[in-house]
């Protein structure tokens, strides 16, 4: 604790390297451009009132998606830098120092997991879950806004090192101890990781509580658990995982921070610290986390397959059992992330065997998706392309996973590029493909017009081929004895051609992303040709398609009563629509408190990174004050009278 007033801050912490100057310049220029744009179009008020302070989950969902896309851009820049380094660094040190490379690798992991994948999923869930359960909003609208803004604050903090500090953590994305301790990492990089994860972790926890309570308590009358759509089921499973394990991440990284700032000894090499305990704790969070990343995607795929096969999902009950059993099993397998730490054959076998059991419900799901297409009439709209690609990658990546579940096999491939290929197969093939499929599928519902399908299919091929060109070499590199996170290697290993191949695959994927961005622009331009006038562009089966596209801000003028699993499909078959008996509607008001609290939380996080404790304390008091002010405010909702509802409904 250098200095009371300024903590560890000093003028030397301003940008000095080419990449910190570059990153800072990029962020500042982008920020300035946005400010200029808003000033010119006089849209400050609109932005604040219509979007930033909104408690409407559809708006919050869109903001999550935009935020995740921005972070995706940052994460992909990281990937490019790493691939280029590895392509050149055979018998050479390349263009990045080892330390810098390791920082990029760490940032890439944290950004993609916490901000991109979770951001996109929270976005889609905000859009769709209330609509699918027949609710108007989440259980806690303000907490929804707060959760988003805390995540955004975390995203700002993880990028803030560019401007002040110049270093990020170099420890790998989970900041394993004791490498992340003060003894080996005295700088602020690890602290930036800790506090950006604390902020976004809190945001995720709040969102998890919110979605859990919403799904359990706010379903439309008649919708029993076994009448919920599969996307809601798998999201519920994912959210239950969130609420049970994110506190473990919060506690563990907080203890690491205590070690670093108050010289405590939880995970240090000396002082009685137990480094293995960090690994156990962080993976007790980490393993369920990866299932949080894939479970919602499973549900999305189930619905997309059913809709485009024009057939009910095969084995609904099995699918629910599969999701639940994957959820329960995911709590019991964490040790498979460190079989090599030497827990002994009995313990290793137990965790290995339980891990293998997860393959059973996973396999059942794949069978059920295929059997849904069987005797269906499958329309290969672009979302279905992503489904087929997903199933192929899921099977290859899944085999790699079950292989690693066997400890003796894992001893050879642990921490190798084989492992990297496995989990990227899951994150890209399952989570990301699910997001792309979900966005194309639900875009017309939220925005009122379809996305250009031809461009989506082109993007798909770039992604699929690019994925295989990038990651098959990594599976092979693992068997060639190449560990992960290497910034240079000997030419004699024979690895270089494979790294270069992977980099070519990266560029194919970049073409895919460019196509997707282009698709958005083109679709907006061609909006009128693809308008969704009926609210049901795909002949859908679930409740969200019963509203207009886009839905009114209150989702449903009248909350429907549910009689079957695929309520909308059944309504269409019976030729009925939702009753028109209007009532007054209670809705939450907009509020800027989410932004204020998160802004202060950002300052607290920053202050704790730099050990400016008086500022952190002040910030904490500020947060508490805001919460007390909120609690005294009894006017956080308003009533939309039924006459107004009728008027809006008439005009649509």
């Amino acid at each position: 604790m250098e200095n009371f007033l300024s903590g560890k801050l000093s003028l030397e912490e301003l940008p000095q390297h080419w990449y910190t100057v570059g990153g800072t310049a990029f962020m500042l220029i982008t920020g300035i451009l946005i400010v200029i744009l808003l000033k010119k179009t006089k849209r400050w008020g609109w932005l604040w009132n219509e979007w930033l302070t909104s408690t409407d989950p559809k708006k919050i969902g869109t903001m999550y998606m935009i935020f995740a896309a921005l972070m995706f851009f940052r994460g992909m820049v990281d990937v490019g830098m790493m691939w280029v380094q590895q392509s050149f660094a055979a018998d050479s040190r390349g263009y990045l120092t080892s330390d810098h490379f390791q920082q990029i690798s760490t940032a890439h992991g944290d950004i993609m997991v916490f901000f991109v994948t979770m951001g996109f999923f929270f976005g889609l869930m905000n859009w769709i879950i209330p609509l699918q359960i027949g609710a108007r909003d989440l259980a806690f609208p303000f907490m929804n806004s707060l959760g988003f803004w805390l995540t955004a604050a975390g995203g700002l903090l993880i990028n803030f090192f560019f401007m002040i500090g110049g270093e990020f953590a170099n420890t790998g994305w989970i900041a394993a101890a004791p490498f992340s301790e003060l003894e080996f990492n005295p700088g602020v990089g690890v602290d930036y990781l800790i506090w950006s994860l604390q902020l976004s972790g809190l945001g995720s926890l709040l969102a998890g509580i919110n979605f859990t309570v919403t799904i359990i308590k706010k379903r439309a009358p008649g919708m029993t658990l076994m009448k919920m759509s599969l996307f809601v089921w798998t999201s519920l499973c994912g959210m239950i995982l969130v609420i049970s394990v994110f506190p473990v991440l919060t506690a563990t990284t907080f203890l690491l921070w205590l070690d670093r700032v108050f010289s405590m000894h939880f995970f240090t090499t000396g002082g009685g610290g137990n480094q293995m305990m960090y690994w156990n704790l962080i993976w007790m969070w980490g393993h369920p986390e990866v299932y949080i990343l894939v479970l919602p995607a499973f549900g999305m795929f189930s619905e997309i397959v059913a809709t485009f096969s024009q057939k009910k999902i095969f084995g609904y009950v099995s699918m629910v059992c599969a999701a639940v059993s994957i959820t329960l099993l995911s709590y019991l397998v964490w040790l498979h992330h460190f079989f090599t730490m030497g827990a002994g054959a009995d313990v290793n076998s137990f965790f290995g065997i339980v891990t293998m059991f997860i393959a059973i419900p996973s396999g059942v799901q794949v069978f059920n998706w295929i059997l849904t297409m069987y005797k269906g009439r499958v329309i290969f709209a672009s979302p279905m392309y992503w489904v087929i690609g997903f199933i192929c990658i899921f099977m290859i990546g899944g085999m790699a996973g079950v292989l690693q579940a066997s400890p003796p096999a894992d001893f050879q491939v642990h921490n190798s590029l084989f492992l990297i290929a496995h989990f990227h197969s899951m994150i890209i093939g399952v989570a990301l493909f699910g997001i792309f499929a979900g966005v194309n599928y639900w875009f017309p519902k939220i925005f009122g017009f379809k996305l250009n399908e031809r461009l989506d299919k082109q993007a798909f091929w770039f992604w699929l081929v690019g994925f295989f060109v990038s990651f098959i070499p990594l599976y092979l590199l693992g068997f060639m004895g190449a560990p992960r996170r290497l910034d240079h290697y000997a030419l004699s290993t024979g690895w270089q051609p494979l790294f270069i191949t992977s980099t070519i695959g990266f560029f194919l994927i970049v073409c895919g992303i460019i196509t997707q961005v282009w698709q958005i622009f083109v679709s907006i331009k061609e909006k009128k040709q693809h308008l969704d006038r009926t609210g049901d562009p795909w002949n859908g089966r679930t409740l969200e398609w019963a509203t207009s596209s886009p839905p009114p801000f209150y989702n449903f003028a009248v909350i429907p009563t549910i009689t079957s699993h695929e309520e909308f499909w059944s309504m269409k078959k019976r030729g009925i629509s939702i009753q028109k008996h209007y009532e007054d509607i209670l809705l939450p008001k907009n509020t800027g408190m989410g932004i204020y609290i998160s802004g202060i939380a950002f300052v607290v996080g920053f202050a704790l990174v730099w050990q400016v404790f008086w500022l952190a304390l002040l910030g904490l008091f500020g947060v508490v004050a805001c919460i007390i002010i909120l609690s005294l405010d009894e006017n956080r909702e308003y009533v939309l009278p039924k006459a107004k509802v009728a008027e809006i409904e008439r005009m649509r």
Partner: protein
Amino acid sequence: MRKVKFVIGVLAIVCAVLSIFFILSSEKALVTHPKGIIADGELSVIITNYLLMSIIILPTFIFLLVIAWKYNAKNAKAEYDPEHTGGVRGELILWIIPSVVIVIMTFVTWKATHELDPYRPLKSEIDPLRIQVVALDWKWLFIYPEQGIATLNFVQFPAGVPIHFSLAADGSPMNSFWMPQLSGQIYAMTGMVTPLHIMAYETGEYTGRAAELNGRGYAGMTFLAKSTSQSDFEDWIIAVKQSPLRLTDQVYNNLVAPSEDNPIMLYSHVEENLFNKIVMKYSGLN
């Protein structure tokens, strides 16, 4: 045009599969070319598991592609049954199929995990050669307690003789000791000893490296492992004992300080009980 795309697709897949086989059969694919008993056993596990999984995965792939093609909406000839959702019996069968394979794999896993346990001494009439390994930032120190010598970034042992490694670390975070051609990896940490039992089949030179990120010198933290005949090994010991370098406490303390890309060093003398002292350093009892 569709036919052309289909043919290109099939060709691409065939090329990919051929290159995979080509690469895995090259000598550079260390994991598929084991030179020691443990790595050999681990490769058998890998192959067995892949074969077992293929029983389910290969047919599933084929079903996926056939069904997606046949039940395409454009194919008017295919049967359409929108209510076909499977009964309880059908769903149960689908659970049983993967369960059977997984249960078989469970038995294979239990057996293999115990047989290939790094902690398990190898069955042999020959007494194992004991070598102590200390992971430092960013090099590997090998101590031969019975011979009284030590080496840096180089380890030599006789082929056909079981080797009992005891691993620890000093001044370095979690480390992983990996010689892919001889055995899977095991972690080396401060304050703890992890054992690893291996045996090389024949003479040869093998790569060893660090497999757990531990700082800027991680990528350069490689070492050379060499197996020779028993007589060559004994000659080598004698030669090392002539080395002018001695691993005194002073020299060792300098080694603990971080350094990268260290050249191979051979020490003719090593302090008594050095390894135990290194391990006990972290227990606070001195």
